[in-house]
């Protein structure tokens, strides 16, 4: 398979290239010494690579993988090519949860970022339930337009509540809203570990639904007829998806377009079968975000671009191209 090999290549590239230029030989030497547990000789490049660049690259990969597999699963479940955490309003719901947790100092003792993460997950799930309930009431067929329109309205609503909370909160929250716009800077190995657990658990659950999601493509009734427990699968996908998006938002803020575009790109590569599409989205999303972050870090070095600028720019162009091709054929 080409994709995992490409991911490895991109990971190596992203650790090797950065705002500070470090010769490839030195990068290899530093990583090799770290792997063998030998003491580092260069005390400037070693911490740059091992303690800031590597964890950031790994987080970028995990967040990209998580968002994309969620996007792929939700697009399949809702039979809606525009479904994704950001378009459905799930991400903005999660960020509202995160902001409230920070504003009211909600913490889980002993769990790093526990409070923010739990609140983000809870609000992500609640947002999805609210949007889908409203959508069912308005339009039982759950048409693309209804859901996306509700997602847009819900996003506006949550962001106005966030603004309201920020207006009455202190300066700290002011800064946090910037962070909620998406940033991978300053992420460490604790974040890597939390994200890895989330991707393995919730991502694994989504991957396991591939066969059922294929049945959904023919309609819920057909899925039911071929023996799919429609209710269970729906619940599983929605809960696992919201949880993943919640964790990602708590770690890195809202990063747009990754979850929306990657599954579409992957359909070109592996086709619409979810048993292949979901793993491909997982890997493809990691590649996309690692590359995007690499661009954000290096393109205007020593300055840094917000990651959302890069993903939206690239994602929007890709999406337009896909949309154009799909409509013409």
């Amino acid at each position, binding site marked *: 398979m080409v994709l995992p090999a490409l991911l490895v290549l991109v990971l190596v590239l992203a650790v090797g290239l950065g*705002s500070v230029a470090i010769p490839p030989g030195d990068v290899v030497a530093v990583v090799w010494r770290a792997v063998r547990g030998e003491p580092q000789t260069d005390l400037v490049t070693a911490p*740059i690579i091992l*303690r800031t660049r590597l*964890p950031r690259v790994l987080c970028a990969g995990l967040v990209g993988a998580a968002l994309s597999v969620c996007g792929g699963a939700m697009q399949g479940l809702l039979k809606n090519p525009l479904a994704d955490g950001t378009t459905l309003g799930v991400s903005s719901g999660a960020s509202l949860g995160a902001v409230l947790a920070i504003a009211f100092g909600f913490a889980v003792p002993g769990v790093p970022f526990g409070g923010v993460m739990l609140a983000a997950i809870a609000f992500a799930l609640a947002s999805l339930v609210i949007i889908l309930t409203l959508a069912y009431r308005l339009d039982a067929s759950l048409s693309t337009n209804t859901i996306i329109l509700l997602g847009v309205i819900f996003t506006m609503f949550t962001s106005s509540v966030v603004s309201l909370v920020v207006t009455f909160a202190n300066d700290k929250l002011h800064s946090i809203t910037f962070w909620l716009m998406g940033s991978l*800077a300053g992420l460490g190995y604790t974040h890597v570990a939390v994200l890895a657990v989330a991707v393995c658990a919730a991502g694994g659950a989504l991957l396991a639904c591939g066969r059922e999601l294929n049945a959904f493509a023919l309609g819920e009734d057909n899925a039911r007829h071929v023996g799919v427990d429609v209710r269970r699968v729906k619940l599983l996908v929605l809960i696992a998806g919201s949880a993943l998006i919640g964790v990602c938002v708590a770690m890195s803020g809202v990063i747009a377009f990754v979850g929306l575009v990657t599954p579409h790109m992957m359909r070109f590569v592996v086709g619409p079968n979810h048993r292949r599409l979901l793993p491909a989205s997982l890997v493809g999303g990691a590649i996309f975000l690692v590359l995007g972050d690499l661009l954000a870090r290096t393109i205007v*070095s020593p300055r840094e671009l917000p990651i959302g600028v890069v993903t939206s720019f690239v994602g929007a162009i890709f999406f337009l191209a896909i949309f154009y091709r799909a409509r013409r054929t």
Partner: protein
Amino acid sequence: MTRRLTPLVAAIGLSAALLGGCQSTPPDGGVTSGAGSAAGVSVTDQAGRTVTLDAPATKVVALTASDVEILYAIGAGADVVGRGEYADYPAEAESVAVVNSGSETNIEQIIALQPDLVIVGTMAQDPEQADQLAAAGIAVAVTDAQTIAETYDTIRLIGALTGRADAAAAVIDDMQATFADLAARAQAVAPTPHKTIYYEVSPLEYGLWAAGSGSFMDEVGHLLQLDNVFADLSSWAEVDQEQVIQRNPDYILTVGMYFGDGPTPIESILGRAGWESVTAVKNRAILNLTGDELSRPGPRLADGAQKLYDFVYADGPAEPTR
């Protein structure tokens, strides 16, 4: 303000003029003062507009924090009838009515205070807002200071508008004296090559932002013989933390705020992964300025310079000022 060097003020004032004050161009037009009580004022503000008042302003609304500080510093604090919401210094200012500023500027709110002068900054304010106020018959003066020299111009301008030109001159002399004194003392003791400093304006958790050249921190650092590690960037810029580690500053100045929970800004920098090799972190040479001393174009730039001088040359690593 330090006044302990009054006997040296004349001599030092001269060298201050050479050090930075020489670029200072006073707002032309100056003060046209008539005899007796009916003293009219006509000055050019820092947007090049002519501001004319029948008499020195006695009811002033200032939207920018630094302009409020200047008004209080020149003794016009009692004339301030409204302040922008970020104007939090001096403490007396907190009893003054708050008005919205920046994009949320509320013209009606300002008119309701019946000021005879509104002072706005170009940084936060739309030009149209100034025009709107002018259309309502209220005199508007625009301030815009990017350097210490331009800050003197602002002080001079506000002094002229409030009929306190002498007090404004005294504040400027004071600042110049402090800068000249600190610069001379720094020059005497600073090592060659210069020590380097990194100015952190936003902490890593919210995206790392550094002050580059063209910032007040950079200018004050120069006076104190400190080289900004991000001199290649202009004003403020988001940077990758790799860059800080590689550029390895001898000192770090952070303006991060502490909100009473979690690590303080200094503790958080000391605890950052990968920063262990940075000289400033190894030596715990981190200063936390929390009073906006070096971020506002006002009289307290001199206080900020004094604190930075004390930190680098006198006290060494200090506890954060809270």
